[in-house]
């Protein structure tokens, strides 16, 4: 009897200690107070030809991350997480992007990736990121097939395929005298993508595409091209897919050689980059889709974003707003999934309803074109260079189903 009593006493004591331990583990204040870290990898060009875009991307992502961390980060299943971004320089090249992504995934063990911004870089790293089921939010401007058959790649940049129809419709409505054009772009995937997107849109709107001209990146003499252009005398030059340095020289030489028509760029041209090379008087009136802090069309949230950016970095980078939302989108996906599992986060991003961005309301779409809803649709700015400044006139809504492609870059 006495032995039985002692046995019960031991069982009771063990159960008490176990319960106490369990309660300590569950309700320990130390555990709840210790946030963990979510690592995000960023691969963008920090040196070389695309450095202006890459540095803007880096700054925008850091700005968004700081804001999120200051607000407490995210809480997943009761655990608080803060974010840390590891930036790698891919030099705007596919081979360097592969190195950067391999380091981010296998050495740094990042959980999600933002960037790259070059089409060639994205195509080079997709076999790795897709095999590793790594959610990657890219910001490429071109590459119509970049989302096809991709399960974990999302594009937060709206390509010309989608925004060009609305952009050129605005141009046609406001400037009905512009009826003929010649498109000029770099002779690479980005340039071909812009050429197809822009020319398809103009063609569908009844404008006449007189021709498409291509140049190698790094070219400095465009006089032969301008001679060809002058012989056809188009109403406007469409320069989407022309990088700022080459675009500036082209504009300068076209004006010097007597071209008097309008210049339109379906991408972003920062006046402070363009003016000193092209000549300030030559860039007045260029219509484009860049955005700055000024103009009647700038959304309120965007204005605040520019104030925050300038306060932190002391300058304005016109490319950075395109990237800023990528971080927030990822955070929204993680919150919605309430998990760090990449497949669950991917599903959560896909199922996001309309949400707010600094550009206005945005949503995911593109199923008809890409087979998945991994393409972001958000308003696109229409801006003009006036008095050396970029003035945003209006925001237009991109089209999910673009006009049929004529493959202009393959035409002889």
């Amino acid at each position: 009897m006495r032995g039985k009593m002692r046995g019960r006493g031991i069982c009771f004591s063990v159960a008490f200690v176990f319960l106490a331990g369990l309660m300590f583990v569950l309700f320990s204040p130390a555990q709840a107070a210790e946030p963990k870290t979510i690592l995000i990898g960023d691969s963008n060009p920090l040196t070389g030809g695309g450095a202006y875009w890459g540095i803007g991307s880096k700054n925008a992502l850091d700005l968004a991350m700081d804001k999120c961390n200051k607000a407490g980060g995210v809480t997943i299943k009761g655990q608080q997480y803060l974010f840390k971004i590891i930036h790698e320089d891919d030099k705007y090249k596919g081979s360097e992007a592969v190195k950067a992504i391999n380091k981010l995934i296998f050495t740094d063990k990042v959980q999600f990736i933002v960037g790259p911004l070059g089409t060639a870089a994205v195509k080079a790293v997709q076999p790795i990121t897709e095999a590793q089921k790594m959610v990657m939010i890219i910001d490429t401007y071109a590459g119509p097939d970049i989302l096809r058959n991709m399960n974990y790649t999302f594009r937060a940049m709206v390509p010309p395929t989608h925004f060009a129809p609305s952009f050129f419709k605005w141009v046609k409505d406001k400037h009905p005298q512009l009826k003929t054009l010649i498109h000029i772009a770099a002779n690479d995937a980005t340039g071909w993508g812009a050429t197809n997107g822009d020319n398809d849109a103009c063609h569908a709107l009844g404008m006449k595409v007189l021709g498409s001209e291509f140049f190698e990146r790094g070219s400095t003499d465009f006089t032969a091209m301008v001679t060809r252009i002058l012989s056809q005398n188009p109403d406007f030059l469409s320069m989407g897919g022309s990088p700022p340095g080459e675009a500036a020289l082209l504009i300068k030489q076209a004006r010097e050689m007597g071209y008097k028509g309008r210049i339109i760029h379906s991408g972003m041209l920062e006046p402070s980059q363009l003016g000193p090379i092209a000549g300030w008087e030559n860039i007045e009136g260029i219509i484009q889709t860049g955005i700055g802090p000024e103009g009647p069309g700038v959304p309120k949230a965007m204005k605040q974003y520019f104030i925050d950016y300038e306060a932190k970095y002391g300058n304005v980078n016109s490319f950075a707003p395109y990237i800023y939302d990528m971080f927030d989108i990822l955070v929204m996906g993680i919150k919605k999934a309430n998990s760090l599992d990449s497949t669950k986060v991917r599903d959560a991003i896909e199922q996001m309803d309309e949400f707010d961005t600094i550009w206005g309301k945005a949503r995911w779409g593109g199923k008809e074109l890409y087979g998945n809803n991994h393409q972001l649709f958000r308003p696109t700015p229409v801006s003009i260079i006036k008095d050396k400044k970029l003035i945003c006139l209006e925001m237009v809504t991109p089209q999910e189903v673009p006009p049929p492609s004529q493959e202009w870059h393959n035409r002889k």
Partner: protein
Amino acid sequence: MTAQILAQIVVYATVLSLVYILMSLGLTLVFSIMRMINFAHGELYMLGGLSVYYIYGRLGLNYWVGILGAVVIMFFFGLLLERTIFRPLRHDMLAACLASLGVGMMLQTGALLFFGEEEKAVPPVVTGTFQLGNVSISNERLLIVLVSVAITLALILFIKKSKTGRVLQAVAQNPEAASLQGINVTRMTAVGFGIACALAATAGGIIAPLVYVSPYMGVEPVLKAFIVVIMGGLGSLVGAVIAGFVLGFVEQFSLTMFGFVGHIFGFIIIMVLLLFRPRGFLGKDFKVH
């Protein structure tokens, strides 16, 4: 093709040819004296552009002071390069060529580190355009035409008529014989290399306001300069002048007629020329000293 387009092609082909000639002068001089293809020529051209950008564009001094500054800086830089890198390799042409490739890479990387990768605009020296019949040409390009012609003629006269020029010719033709005549071949080789570097810098400084300066600005022009030098005959100044005009006109015509695919015509011409005349227009047999 209308008369206006033809006139436009001829005018701009002339400008392009003179730019090619200006860029190839230094390269030709180095080959004629040192029997070496200087792969760092594009980077020396870039440093000339950067020097003018800082002296004229940033310090606000006169443009021609900027050019003079670039010439002086690059002449002495050339002497330094010759003394430290190329003189020890003067009996090994292949090693010297490879060394020049390395020097070019170092200069480009150094420029990236010290000056940054972004394109820098050099303020225009002259503004406005000149109307030549129906053809409009910028005064900046006219200035390049005048300076290119002046420099090319001055260099040819210097080589043919001046005492130093004739000594350089003697060293280029036969260094052993020149040495037996009491010429300090080592010193004259260094001077020749210094002049070639100064010529590269002049080209960079003259062309900089027309384009922009960046660490990569020498990459494309030097390719064209190589074509001109090979086509003209390695080491021949007059050959380079002829080749510059041939390449400039062929490119301008073909690019205007066929678009960007016209670039291949320059390469086709050089291949055909080398098949039938491997020494180029005015090249001679040479031996490696």
